């Protein structure tokens, strides 16, 4: 009996060690990433977040609960009722070119980013501390500091991107390929991977990691691949550009969001009834409504026949498919809806990335992306009711029809491993936590 127990212990230990050995992080190797999309510059607007945050970092980051946490900043202090913030910088952080991060190098970059949303902002730099001031107030400055647009990156004399992230740009062929190399002096420790190669516009699914787009080009996902799916982080909506509110209302009642999400998006998302997804705000269900073709027909019959055009991005096959389906739904209620790529229709199908866990920031981003002129004022994250009121006001203006909140989906090859941060609603993959088997 003792012997048997001893054998059982040895076998269990061996199996445990074997399994640990397989999942234990290891350094080295190159991760090949195939992305179906393309981008032609490495700035924050163009580059997808999954790539961007490898080279550029922000002063703060959002945690799983949507609470800002220090990143390049070591901390911050709110003063003067949110009109002034004292931000301390993390020590021993270096740029990819070896320059030490300090308030002198950060302040101009941050000031340029904040000026876009706060015209009266001023920054006083001194050593490892900066004082950020604005007479109109900066209630959500920590959240804003987590926004990729406030990332601390610059370009050198050869126009290469210089950041503080775990990877530095090794080579860049615009629109085709991006090679990143591990940054050995990264303040958070060297990443496991030696390098990372991103192939852009790739329709193959042969890389270690590949995205699975919502619509064609179709990819045959290998059976051995694992699927990683983000939280809904992209808004698909129709925005009116001068269409009559009654028409927008009729169209909203005519559209059946279920088939759009379940079939066209292949369940990579959820039907949207508000700008922000429920996981981010918790109140989206309050805006839920079922299609009502009868009411939609009544509204349409009260309108004199008008030619309405729904435009969509010409390169977005998913948007095209959605526009087709919406035109079909519209036809069912007697509304003649023409669809047109890349034209200024009275209605526009828009996809907006909400790649942040900060609801207020996401709402501002969404409003900005949708081109709403009366975008909400700077909201205080600490007051969710103001966020709800602001979003409700936007939705009740009958200029918006949220359609879906879409996920990002990636396929992972068997040799790819990563540390699971245990986040309930992951927004994106973090390749700096990836390692690969030889």
């Amino acid at each position, binding site marked *: 009996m003792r012997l048997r127990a001893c054998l059982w212990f040895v076998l269990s230990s061996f199996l445990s060690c074997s399994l640990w050995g397989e999942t234990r992080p290891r350094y080295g190797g190159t991760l090949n990433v195939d992305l179906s999309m393309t981008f032609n510059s490495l700035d924050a607007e163009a580059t997808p977040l999954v790539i961007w945050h490898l080279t550029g970092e922000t002063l703060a980051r959002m945690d799983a609960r949507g609470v800002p946490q220090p990143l390049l900043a070591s901390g911050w202090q709110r003063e003067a009722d949110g009109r002034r913030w004292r931000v301390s910088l993390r020590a021993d952080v270096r740029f990819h070119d070896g320059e030490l991060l300090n308030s002198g190098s950060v302040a101009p970059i941050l000031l340029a980013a904040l000026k876009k949303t706060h015209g009266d902002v001023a920054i006083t730099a001194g050593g490892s501390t900066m004082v950020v001031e604005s007479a109109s107030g900066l209630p959500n400055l920590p959240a804003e500091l987590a926004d990729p647009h406030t990332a601390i990156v610059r370009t050198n004399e050869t126009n290469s991107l210089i950041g503080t992230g775990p990877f530095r740009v090794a080579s860049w062929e615009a629109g085709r390929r991006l090679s990143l190399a591990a940054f050995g002096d990264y303040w958070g420790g060297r990443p496991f991977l030696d390098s990372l190669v991103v192939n852009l516009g790739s329709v193959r699914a042969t890389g270690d990691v590949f995205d699975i787009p919502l619509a064609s080009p179709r990819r045959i996902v290998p059976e051995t691949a694992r699927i990683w799916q983000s939280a809904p982080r992209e808004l698909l909506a129709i925005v009116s550009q001068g269409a009559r509110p009654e028409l927008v209302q009729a169209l909203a009642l005519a559209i059946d969001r279920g088939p759009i999400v*379940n079939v066209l998006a292949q*369940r990579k998302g959820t039907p949207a009834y508000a700008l922000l997804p429920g996981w981010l705000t918790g109140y989206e269900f309050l805006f839920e409504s079922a299609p009502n073709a009868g009411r939609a027909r009544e509204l349409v019959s009260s309108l004199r026949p008008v030619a309405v055009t729904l435009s969509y991005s010409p390169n977005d096959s998913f948007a095209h498919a959605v526009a087709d389906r919406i*035109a*079909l739904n519209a036809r069912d209620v007697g509304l003649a809806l023409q669809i047109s790529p890349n034209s200024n229709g009275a209605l526009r199908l828009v996809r907006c990335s909400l790649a942040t866990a900060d609801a207020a920031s996401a709402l501002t981003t969404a409003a900005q992306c949708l081109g709403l002129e009366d975008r909400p004022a700077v909201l205080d994250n600490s007051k969710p009711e103001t966020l709800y009121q602001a979003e409700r006001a936007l939705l009740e203006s009958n200029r918006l029809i949220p359609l879906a909140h879409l996920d990002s989906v990636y396929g992972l090859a068997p040799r790819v491993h990563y540390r699971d941060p245990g986040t309930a609603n992951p927004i994106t993959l973090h390749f700096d936590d990836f390692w690969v088997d030889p």
Partner: protein
Amino acid sequence: MSFRTKVFLSITATVVIAVWIVAAVVSALVTDSFERIDTQRTAALVGEFRHQFARRSDDVSRRIDAIANSETVQRLAVNLSGPQPDTAQYVDEASALAREQSLNFLELIGPDRRIVSSAEWPARFGYQENWLADNTNWSRGVFLRTEELADGSALGLVTVRTVKAGDGVLYIAGGLELDKGFVDTLPATEGMQVQLYRNMGAETAGNMPPSRLASSLIDEVRAQPRELTRTGVASSITAIPLLGIDKQLLAVLLVESSRAELVSLKRTIQETAWGVGTAGVLIGLVLSFWTASRVTKPLRELATSVQEVAAGDWGTRAAVRSSDEVGRLARDFNHMTEQLTEQRDRMIQAERVAAWRELARRLAHELKNPLFPLQITVENLQRARQATPEQFDDVFRESTQTLIAELDNLKTIIGRFSDFAKMPAPQREPMDLSSAARDVARLFDAQIHAPGRPLVEIRFELEENLPSISADPDQIRRALSNLILNALDAMPRGGRLTVRTQSAGSPGRVAIEVSDTGDGLTAEECERLFTPYYTTKQQGTGLGLAIVQSVVSDHKGTISVQSQPGKGTTFRIELNR
């Protein structure tokens, strides 16, 4: 109508009618031949259409069979057989399968007749295809169907296959579009055109708007689907109805054969006919001129000669240019005029002799009457001298008185002849014809009312305000006097003498008539009435009416007579104002 015109019209009419008949016959033959060929070509094209239709039907069947047997469809069928079928992942499959099989339409439809995937309208997934319920036992046939598309609809040659999926079936419905591409594959020869017009409710749709003829033909076929052919000026069109599975009219195939070639040919014939006809007219014109110059010129010359002869030129001769009928006619004409001239000369000579004889007779008669008393008187004087010289003086005195009286009578007679011989030229002056007529008539009052003479009533019908005339009053009065005297002489048993003045029928002329109710004259007498020395009276010289005619003639007037035996005579003189 001149001879030349008749010749011209005859030649032109002959040529034009001949050309028209030839053109009409040729045109009819060409039309008949063309239409026969056209019918054959149309029939061949329609046959080819049916052949291509059947071939495409086979293609559709084969391709849909391949899809029904494909791994994708089998996988979908298995999926649908499961407890919780997930068809979302198949939403793009129809497009891929349609591309593989080169089909225009393909729909994968679940047992609940909801579209799983649609190639022609990808957005229609989830919608129901209720038409599938109309037929539970899909044969392997291929049929026409109007396929709904996002941007309208299209005519499809489709078929349906079923694949067992659990308790139900998976429908595979697809096919090829019958479009311009299909129509273009038909081997239409030059001048032929094939059009496909779809029946879309109140309208039709095709590659190009139908012509008026085609449009009416389509309407006829829509009203009653059947094959029809109509022929217009520019083309002939055959319409073939294309029916769907429920025999509803889905489209009309129009096979149009251009008649441009025929029209061109007919136009050429017409133009040729016009050309020949025009040439015929010109030839007719030339021939008519030539014929006229050859035929009618001698006739015209002959006619001119006749007119000259009629005008009194008896010496005119027609030119004899040929020995044909016209030449003989000219010779005969010349001979005739020569004969007439000779006869006239002889007549003139005879009349002259007769006149001299008449004159001699008259002279003898007139002179003999006074000469006989003269002779008797002189003989009485001789006898009285010898027998009774004592009475000689008385006899001498009586005899000399008688001699003087008879000599005066002779002198008067000779004076009359002398007056007639030397009628003076009229001395014109304005005169009132009515008053002159009344005055002259009154000179005869004593004679009319002489005792023992039968009653002659004189009636004046004189127009008031008759315009005055320019004439010699003495001569006019003399003429009127002669006419009234003649009228009185014509009524020995009494009667009515009417003197009438009036404006003549011709403007600027006046007329005077003297009528009696005597015995009248015969037609022959009327003809000879104005001949000098001709008289119907016992005691007349025959110079009275000759003098009247001479006076009227010298005044540029006219004199006529109307008479009916037993009813009287009317003399009418018309004079210029």
